[in-house]
């Protein structure tokens, strides 16, 4: 039996292996054969020992019959013929003598041992050395589009890991016994297991493993703020940088899709019950997938003319290619999920009317109404909400105007107000659409920027200017009522507020002007009233969002669930997915109970009906 920890270290991390005497490299790479050969003696005859360059598969190749449990007499370097047997160190498994070679692991030489007993599978490093190797492998960066080129196109910025980079990165995972990363994930993906599968080059299985808990790894790998979730908890992060879990997730999902290995899961017997999902954003898609997989008939209602919610209208192409979103939605369609476009629930059908046709409803409509600061001049021409700007550019494809009919005036100098991912998306979209100068104005300091570090980094690379610790106070207009400048005031950080961040305080008389011909306000969204106006018995919380039970995501209306931004206010894609998952679990439980006691069903229906 192998030590579990050692097993995963062997990990297909390609390492150069050397003779400790002559320093000749053992690694031979022929066209198809990759192996390390040693010479060895057994009962006076020469036999070959073969080890894979990943140091995990070990074979004896010989014409002489060698019995399991027998020791080889000697192991020699095929070049200098010197014995490799180490005098002092015994096999960690059976105590037999071991042969020692040297592996070069990231500019450090570490001894590696091979047991001389045939059949004993112990060959490896000491636990401490394995850990050292892992710590010595640096976090692998994703290759990405050149910064000067990418601002002129809409293609995705990172290319994703190559197989080699993914293997190296997977090799860094310590395979903790109590993995903290899993706790950090809102949908509790079994991260160490999937990374181990990557390390074993079982990319397809790794993708399937993630999909057990996360339906859309290609999307999450790209847009989750991993640095605040799984990667924040990674033990490697204490001494070095955390394992790039998000990048690996993206790699396996892309691998599975590109290699055409995605299989639509077989749907278990139909329960005969129907579920309506309002909104086809990340949360809606998650619960749709979960409930369909459990055998329910699922219909998703979308207000816009395209599915995907924020994944389609909000997140730009260069961060999340629309083909990927479409691929995931096509996958749900193949699973048998129905999509109804152009359906504004609350208007064309109310939640009560849905309950007449469906057994349960999930409301995942997202936060709707864009917030404004109520400043003077905010309604001047070319002052946009981030939603309007991104909707025009992404959903309506205004950057292809006049080929597409929706226009978007070309700004030369653009000011984006806000510091979240949406602000970064707006700024980077503006840069790509030919704006000469894009400035982000944010009232707190760099440390408090709510956007993902990677997005901030990319934005800076693309020449976006950051005016931190500044806040707009009014917009100035031209004679024909278009914005011509933003007046800002400098801020300093004061006392810590309820959110745990230091409250920004304006510095008196520090006003200054930033000239611009377009301003984008990206400071978040409030709740959209359409759905509650028609559903008076659904209780709202004090911020005007839907009140839902934290454990189950059920609203105060029986069989109506809600999650995502419409419950929490503006948050992340994965949190919306997590909310969809939680609701799916409880909805399944409740609907199962209904099936088993059909009499109760009618009673419940009467209660929820009009």
């Amino acid at each position, binding site marked *: 039996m192998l030590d579990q920890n050692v097993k995963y270290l062997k990990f297909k991390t390609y390492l150069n292996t050397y003779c400790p005497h002559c320093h000749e490299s053992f690694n031979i790479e022929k066209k198809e054969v990759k192996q390390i050969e040693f010479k060895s003696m057994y009962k006076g005859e020469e036999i070959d020992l073969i080890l894979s360059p990943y140091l995990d598969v070990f074979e004896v190749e010989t014409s002489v019959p060698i019995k399991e449990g027998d020791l080889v007499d000697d192991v020699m370097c095929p070049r200098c013929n010197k014995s490799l047997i180490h005098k002092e160190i015994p096999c960690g498994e059976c105590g037999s003598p071991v042969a020692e070679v040297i592996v070069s692991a990231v500019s450090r030489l570490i001894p590696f041992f091979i047991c001389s007993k045939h059949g004993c599978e112990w060959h490896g490093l000491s636990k401490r050395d394995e850990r050292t190797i892992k710590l010595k492998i640096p976090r692998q960066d994703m290759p990405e589009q050149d910064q000067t080129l990418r601002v002129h196109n809409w293609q995705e910025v990172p290319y994703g890991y190559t197989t080699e980079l993914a293997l190296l990165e997977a090799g860094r995972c310590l395979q903790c016994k109590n993995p903290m990363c899993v706790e950090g994930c809102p949908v509790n993906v079994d991260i160490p297991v999937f990374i181990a599968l990557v390390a074993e080059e079982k990319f397809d299985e790794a993708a399937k493993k993630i999909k057990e808990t996360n339906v859309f790894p290609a999307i999450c790998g790209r847009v989750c703020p991993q640095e605040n979730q799984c990667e924040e908890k990674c033990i490697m992060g204490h001494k070095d940088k955390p394992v790039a879990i998000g990048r690996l997730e993206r790699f396996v999902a892309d691998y599975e899709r590109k290699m055409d290995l995605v299989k639509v899961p077989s749907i278990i017997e139909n329960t005969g019950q129907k579920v309506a999902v309002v909104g086809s954003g990340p949360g809606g898609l998650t619960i749709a997938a979960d409930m369909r997989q459990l055998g329910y008939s699922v219909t998703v209602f979308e207000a816009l003319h395209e599915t995907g919610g924020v994944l389609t209208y909000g997140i730009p192409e260069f961060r999340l290619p629309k083909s990927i979103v479409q691929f995931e939605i096509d996958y749900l369609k193949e699973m048998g999920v129905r999509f109804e476009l152009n359906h*504004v629930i609350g208007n064309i059908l109310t939640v009560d009317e849905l309950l007449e046709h469906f057994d349960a409803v999930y409301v995942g409509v997202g936060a709707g109404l864009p917030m404004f600061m109520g400043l003077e001049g905010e309604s001047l021409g070319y002052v946009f909400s981030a939603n309007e700007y991104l909707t025009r550019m992404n959903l309506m494809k205004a950057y292809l105007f006049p080929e597409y009919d929706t226009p978007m005036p070309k700004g030369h100098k653009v000011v984006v107000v806000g510091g979240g991912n949406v602000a970064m998306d707006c700024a980077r979209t503006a840069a790509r659409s030919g704006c000469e100068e894009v400035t982000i104005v944010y009232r707190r300091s760099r440390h408090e920027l709510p956007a993902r570090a990677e997005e901030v980094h990319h934005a800076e690379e693309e020449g976006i200017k950051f005016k931190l610790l500044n806040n707009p106070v009014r917009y100035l207009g031209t004679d024909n009522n278009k914005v011509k400048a933003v007046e800002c005031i400098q801020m300093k950080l004061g006392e810590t507020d309820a959110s745990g961040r230091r409250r920004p305080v304006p510095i008196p008389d520090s006003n200054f002007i930033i000239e611009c011909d377009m301003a984008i306000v990206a400071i978040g969204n409030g709740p959209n009233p359409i759905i509650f106006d028609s559903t008076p018995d659904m209780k709202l919380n004090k911020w005007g969002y839907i009140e839902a039970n934290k454990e189950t995501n059920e609203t105060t209306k029986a069989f109506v669930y809600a999650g995502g931004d419409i419950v929490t206010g503006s948050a992340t894609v994965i949190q919306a997915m997590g909310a969809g998952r939680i609701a799916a679990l409880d909805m399944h439980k409740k609907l199962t109970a209904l099936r088993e006691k059909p009499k109760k069903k009618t009673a419940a229906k009467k209660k929820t009906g009009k």
Partner: protein
Amino acid sequence: MFQIVRKQEMAKGTIIRFDINAPKIAKKIKAGQFVILRVNETGERIPLTVADKDEFAGIITIIFQVVGKTTALMRSLNEGDLIKDVVGPLGKPAHTDKIGTVIMVGGGTGVAILHHVVKAYKEAGNYVISIIGARDKEMLILENEMSQISDELVVTTDDGSYGQRGFVTDPLKKYLDERKDIKQVYAIGPIIMMQNIVKLTKKYEIPTMVSLNPIMIDGTGMCGGCRVKIDDTTRFCCVDGPDFDGFKVDFDELLNRNSLYIKEEKDSLLFSIK
């Protein structure tokens, strides 16, 4: 896909009427509410208020003036053709309670929308005086339909080629002077017209509702493009409107915001001609 089941050209082909097969919308839509439609894959989303509906036949009627690329493209469509997306009903319905005598004013294509609201006011049991105006005789639409559902109907044309010569505000002023039982004025049409009506009714302190038509994209409260200033606070026309208390609307701002894309509109039209 939504099929055009009937097409009718009015006002020398500058105003078009479509009856569109949209049973789910027809079942729900109320007077004052609007739909957003997108003609084809590359099309823009444009809001159009519904002029009438037939719940049983599953038909909604839209009437629009040909002003830009999308409406020009729509004019080229014929009976049997399909419109890619129609989403609705959107916005809040007009308040059509029984209040007594009301004056309903419509100008230009605004008459089309007015028709649906007048019908609802009439059905609620109000005494309806309608005033409809147009540039000239040829641009006047729906006169017959309006006379059928109104208790009194006055027609004005700017050049006097039909009905009374002048603007809709002239007969409105006369009514306000003569009749003391007017409970409410409802106006829909060009922004300038609504602004002038509000100026007038303010003097008489007659509550006035106006139906606004700002630029919209999604029409579901998401983009904020349709924001209007009502009583100095920002409201979204697509979810809070389109009907607002006319005394509180900042018309100048609305006028500015609606003229933002004149150049792009021209470019788009030129591109499509090429």
